[in-house]
């Protein structure tokens, strides 16, 4: 039997390479997005702290902002170590 390819669609799956399934701040999946976003993907990526704990970038930014407003340094929500973004 001879098959002639007329047309083809490329299909791919993607997944963030994160150890946990859900963000420890908003409890939404990393492969979904934070509560303020509507589309998962590059606009709502996970970020890592130096302690290797990950959060949605928007969740981490909101936590840092709320702690800065309170006038203190921001501990990691998971382990309470000083939260600094990890250079990748």
């Amino acid at each position, binding site marked *: 039997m001879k098959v002639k390819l007329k047309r083809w669609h490329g299909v791919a799956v993607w997944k963030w390479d994160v150890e946990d399934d859900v963000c*420890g*701040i*908003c*409890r939404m999946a990393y492969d979904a997005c934070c509560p303020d976003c509507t589309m998962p993907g590059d606009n709502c990526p996970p970020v890592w702290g130096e302690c290797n704990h990950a959060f949605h970038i928007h969740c981490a930014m909101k936590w840092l902002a*709320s702690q800065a407003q*309170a006038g*203190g340094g921001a*501990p990691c929500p998971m382990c309470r170590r000083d939260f600094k973004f990890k250079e990748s």
Partner: protein
Amino acid sequence: MASDLSRVKKELAECAKDTKSSVQCVPVGGSMTHLEGTIKGPDGTPFAGGVFKIDITIPGGYPFEPPKMKFTTRIWHPNISSQTGAICLDILKDQWSPALTIKTALMSLQALLCSPEPDDPQDAEVARMYKDTYQTFVQTAKFWTETYAMEHMGGGDHENAIARVCEMGFAAAEARRALEAHNWDEVAAINSLLSA
């Protein structure tokens, strides 16, 4: 900042699923910003056998701000106001983390019942009793648990009230006298007997 009510909803669903837990949490009315938690008094403490209700308000900044919690069941504990139910616990204040949940906060309250911190008191009178006359503290805390945190207790007739006061080691006659003098308010009567 609008609070993340979808997270609250998720947390409540998880609480509802876990029926075996000794802490529970349900919404009050239709809103997700006012909840009621219940914790069981831990065994081996003067609060054992009691069920304590906690009023929970979810602030606008949740989960970046801690939930506001206070006891609505009266309790005799150094870190909880015997008058207002206000709670002194670091994770409900500056040690809050958005990785904590309503359930973990309620479990921390249970842990607080196991290990009071009389050096960081919310109720100075209770803390003083805890440090100076520990046995009196245990008796009073047990009595409050029986009076306020157990169903079908309290509000009984006068003879039951006298019996309960007698259980704390007072003679029936003086128990009756104290209760009559305090209009059958058991706590007031006990306090007067203890301070006599």
